[in-house]
């Protein structure tokens, strides 16, 4: 089926070429980082994880979000999702590959990455994360490919594949749960030390993933003549809305626990993220604009998706609403959550993080690679759909 990715109109080629340029720049920047060390990034002794790990965390959610299509279709037999379930599975593949690239970009000794398998360590959450991420990647490649091949031949998918389809559902939940456990089991990091992190991650994942799929489905309708169907999109928006609201509710709960209990450790990071933290006469607030961006975009997106006119009658506002939700949750989890957790540091000093240009270009390079893969996968999926229709 790969041949479908090779043929395409000018716009398709230009889009891939643009992504290719950013991939090349990112690759060159990575070579620089590989030869010089992670000192080329903005990370340091106090903020020891930066953009790479925060992007990884967010993208695990995007990958897990695909299950919001798989679950209704395969378990509840919700037929309207039949056409777009493959979009969820392929999005998961692209997002997981981005996750793995971000992990590799973040390692100080990437050549030794296989040590995680050579010396399996069950008490480390990173070991389990490696297992579930690779497992979920394998399941999505297998299920997506087998089912798409069967569709193309006009036959029913083989029965054995359903075992893997059903297994992929708890795996989707597990990837984001285990990723949350990377953070929420660490003593002395009060902002992360919260039992609500895993459910909050899942809620934001089930909004961000589907929001991206709806947004892309609207684009595919224009550029690739692929109609996901009104009913499917409408149902997905319902899922996005509820998930985004639950995420906002969880954020609110974190505020209540911190500020009502008045325990400094539980307030510091929230204070730093949303209002700025004063320390020895200096105001530290470089993430405040991002967090208020999250609040505004989240509320704006929810409003656009909740009002019947902007949701059902106007595709522009529908797409805008989804994009706003996606960016809002990226700001929340892909920026604030990971970076904020390091402030203040264990010695209650405050150090702020600013990514370096090299680091930003690598990050953009990985995102471009992910979208490159996604474009090719979607090209194949849409190509097969057109073939069946003809």
């Amino acid at each position: 089926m790969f041949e479908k990715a090779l043929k395409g109109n000018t716009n398709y080629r230009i889009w891939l070429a643009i992504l290719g340029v950013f991939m090349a720049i990112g690759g060159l920047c990575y070579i620089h980082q590989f030869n010089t060390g992670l000192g080329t990034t903005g990370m340091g002794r106090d903020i020891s994880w930066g953009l790479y790990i925060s992007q990884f965390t967010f993208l695990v959610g995007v990958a897990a979000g695909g299950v919001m299509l798989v679950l209704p279709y395969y378990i509840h037999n919700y037929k309207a999702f039949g056409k777009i379930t493959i979009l969820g599975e392929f999005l998961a593949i692209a997002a997981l590959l981005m996750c793995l690239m971000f992990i590799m970009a973040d390692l100080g000794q990437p050549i030794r990455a296989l040590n995680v398998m050579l010396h399996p360590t069950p008490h480390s959450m990173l070991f389990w994360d490696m297992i579930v991420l690779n497992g979920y990647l394998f399941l999505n490649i297998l299920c997506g490919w087998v089912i798409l091949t069967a569709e193309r031949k006009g036959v029913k998918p083989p029965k054995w594949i359903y075992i893997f389809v059903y297994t992929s559902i708890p795996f989707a939940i597990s990837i984001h749960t285990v990723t949350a456990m990377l953070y929420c089991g660490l003593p002395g990091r009060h902002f992360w030390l919260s039992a609500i992190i895993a459910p909050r991650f899942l809620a934001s994942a089930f909004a961000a993933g589907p929001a991206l799929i709806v947004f892309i489905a609207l684009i595919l309708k224009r550029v690739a003549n692929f109609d996901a169907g009104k009913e499917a999109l409408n149902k997905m928006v319902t899922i996005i809305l509820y998930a985004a609201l639950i995420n906002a509710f969880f954020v609110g709960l974190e505020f209540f626990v911190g500020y009502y209990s008045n325990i400094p450790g539980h307030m510091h990071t929230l204070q730093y993220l949303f209002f700025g933290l004063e320390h020895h006469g200096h105001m530290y607030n470089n993430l405040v604009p991002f967090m208020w961006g999250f609040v505004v975009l989240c509320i704006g997106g929810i409003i656009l998706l909740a009002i019947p006119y902007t949701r059902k009658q106007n595709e522009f506002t529908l797409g805008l609403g989804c994009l706003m939700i996606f960016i809002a949750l990226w700001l929340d989890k892909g920026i604030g959550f990971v970076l904020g957790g390091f402030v203040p540091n264990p010695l209650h000093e405050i150090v702020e993080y600013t990514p370096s240009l090299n680091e930003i270009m690598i990050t953009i390079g990985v995102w471009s690679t992910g979208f490159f893969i996604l474009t090719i996968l979607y090209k194949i999926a849409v190509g097969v759909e057109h073939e069946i229709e003809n």
Partner: protein
Amino acid sequence: MDKNRRNFLKVAGISTLAGLGAPAIVDRVISGKGEGEVFASGGAAGHHGAEPTEHHGEGNTESHKEEKTGTRYGMVIDTRQFNANPKLGVKCVDACHKMHNVPEFPKGDKNEIKWIWLTNHENAFPEHSQQFKDKDTADNKVLVTCNHCENPPCVRACPTKATFKNKDGIVMMDFHRCIGCRFCMAACPYGARSFNWLEPKTILPTPTNPDYPRRMRGVVEKCNFCADRLALGEKPACVAAAGHSGAMIFGDLNDPNSEIRKVLKENFTIQRKPSLGTNPSVFYIV
């Protein structure tokens, strides 16, 4: 439809059971190997007993469990002595960093590497009362380093066992196994770990101590209680630098007759962040 649902429930049930059971079995299998045997082979170092570093083996998965017998090295830092002699702290830091070829960065540099350093009382003990400080705690600095916790969160977090707890209680680093994921740095509640953000050999072209290896870039490092010196029957470099001032006392916390236990018995001491349950092996007389 019904048939599908039934099939699903079967599969879901079996996979749930497998998911719940597998970690327990894996844990059982690994702990069954028994770390005791692994270390027994390295026990030839005599009763001064620093284990040779290459013998850390695979058996450290259970290191968070309490080891009631055997050595547990620990340290008492008497801040009164450091307050009385303000130059002593710097001397201890220098002795350590020279001994271990720790490259020097400008103070506060993001790439800084610190094995032992001086900080304010409020930073060393952020959970203790900082209101109405007395002159001594307000004006003086406190030495902080790796606490060689009895329940080290860094060891729990490390995905490759590159950091592990030795049988003598020392939390060690294997620089050759570390993949540089820095999970241990996020896990350490004391900020005791440093990462080689840059190539250390370019910052420290000639080693200050040719007998100790310099590290490569991209790995984490920290205080190791001078395990290599202990193996030779010497005291850690910082303790040796403090000399006979009594400012630093080093010894076996599990030996009721050791000097350190005597000091602990005679003085009121505190640990850093005791509420976290890590049980640090470094104690402070304030």
